[in-house]
């Protein structure tokens, strides 16, 4: 099977990271780019689900005090806090690929289990918890979301490795009332978990689960052009980010 592209395309600007995420999905959908696995992080940001209400989910005053950037992503789901202790993983694939499910929501199970399997290789007994979560020790370490275009699907998720949970609970007040406690790997394991090892283990989880092999690549010119355009037209503007 042809190797998937591995993208470590991460930008210091969180708006650009989201713009790139959309640009890659569009390119894969239009068959201009291959199936892709992307790893990326945001620094000190709150990432709001597509149609989430910011006023309900986010404490704006705390965000202002702590210099937290607020970004709205184009996929659904809840609101998350991200710092460099959180690893975002994104899987972009053509719907013609055998891995593509008939019921779209099955992508959560497909990739949630593969990521959990990868973590298992590090001695971390994480498990996929339906509909769209990965847990460790009964607590949430990853949330997943998805976007389906006509010919491609994006399934992406977070993975809390060493995120500052104090800031998380300050900026996202609803978390205190959540049914599932949120934690991070280093807190549970009481040891450091290097980012590069986690990335490698996720890739191994994908390979062992679905024979997905990857080859390091980079963003194409078209993807960069599209990302820059949507950065300026949408993602960096308050009209988009503060829509609801």
């Amino acid at each position, binding site marked *: 099977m042809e190797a998937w592209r591995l993208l470590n395309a991460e930008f210091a600007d969180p708006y650009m990271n989201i713009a790139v995420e959309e640009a890659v999905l569009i390119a894969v959908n239009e068959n201009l780019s291959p199936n892709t696995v992307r790893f990326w992080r945001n620094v000190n940001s709150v990432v709001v689900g597509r149609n989430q209400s910011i006023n309900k989910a986010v404490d704006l005053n705390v965000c202002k005090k702590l210099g937290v950037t607020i970004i709205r992503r184009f996929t*659904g789901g809840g609101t998350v806090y991200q710092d460099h202790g959180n690893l975002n993983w994104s899987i972009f694939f053509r719907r013609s690929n055998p891995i593509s499910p008939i*019921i779209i*929501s099955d992508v959560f199970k497909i990739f949630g289990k593969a990521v959990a399997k990868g973590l298992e290789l590090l001695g971390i007994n994480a498990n996929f918890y339906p509909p769209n979560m990965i847990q460790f020790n009964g607590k949430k370490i990853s949330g997943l979301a998805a976007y389906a*275009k006509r010919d491609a699907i994006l399934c992406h998720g977070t993975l809390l490795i060493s995120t500052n949970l104090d800031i998380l609970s300050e900026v996202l007040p609803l978390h205190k009332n959540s049914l599932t406690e949120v934690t991070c790997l280093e807190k549970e394991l009481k040891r450091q978990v290097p980012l590069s090892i986690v990335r490698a283990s996720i890739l191994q989880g994908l390979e062992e689960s679905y024979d997905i092999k990857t080859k390091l690549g980079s963003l194409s010119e078209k993807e960069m052009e599209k990302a820059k355009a949507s950065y300026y037209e949408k993602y960096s503007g308050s*009209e988009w980010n503060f829509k*609801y």
Partner: protein
Amino acid sequence: MQTVILPRLDEDQKSGMILEWLKGEGAEVEKDEPIVIVMSEKIMMDVSAPVSGKLYKIFAQENVEMPVGQIIAVIVEPSDDPNIVSRFVEEAKRSLAGVEVKEPRKPEEKVPISPLARKLAEQYGIDVATVKGSGPEGRIVKEDILRAVEELKPEAKAPPRILTIPLTGIRKIIAERVSSSHLAAPHVTLTMDANASEANKLKETGISYNAILIKAVAKALQSYPILNSTLEGDQIKQFEDVNIGLAVAIKEGLIAPVVHDAEKKTLAEINIAVEDLIRKARENRLSVSEVTGGTFTISNLGMFEVDVFTPIITPGQSAILGIGRVVDKPHVVSARIEIKPTVTFSLSFDHRIADGAVAAQFLQLVKKFFENPHLLSS
């Protein structure tokens, strides 16, 4: 004529929602063109036009929950009989009238407000739900927010004034280059103290620290060529030449003129080249060839009383050597304390290309040459 229905995204999904119509009623659409974004709780999906034609009738509003499988639109093709289309649409309306549809999203969750007013509200910490809009259809505009700010308690303060400096020119280029290098290459920085006694003696003869360091690095790179390389995709490419860039502070920012073929030049030749390049840099007279082709960079912040720092690798290279200030420090020599002029080297390297042991050995060799500059002429 083709109907568009609300698709099922989840196995147990009973209802869903239109997030956004991408085309309006009456618009011409192409087959397979996305016309609407629908959503379940966790998934968004583009729904495409099943045929080319006119998006004749939209039955579903945005942000209104409705049953999966409900007709949300009708697309009419040029060949369709208008009477049949009209009858179908009327029947569809009647049947949809009997379908339970939840209320649209409550108004406070989507407050009509101009982008500028929203930005100001966020800046001043104003809850927009408490503001009455004076714009069209109750839209909150800038003046409404400013009025709300005026009505705040006396201790409310305006945000601090900001001086805006556009990120342009060399500053913008530096910003882009250091961002891309720092994000792409996993940086590790090693530090090591070196005795500057012998280098000081040489300095008194007119040879600069920079020249000694360039020659020391060039010579050490011949033993550790992996640190004179670049990573392209999955290939490490070692440069055959040793061209050392020296970061020089200028008014607009930073520039790194290059001493080409440093391994082939004598210490005296390098000294002359460095003086010439620094003078040209400050006079903005460097040529293109004098600022390109670098394979390794040295950055000296000693003149600013910096001891140690974590330099960022120049994109396209694998390492950079930072130089701190020379300061008298106590050393233990044969169980006695002696004060010696000491400088700290900070070597940042790309861990994808080299490991700590190799980088440390390279730095040890640079230190050895710096402490014993007579070795540089052999």
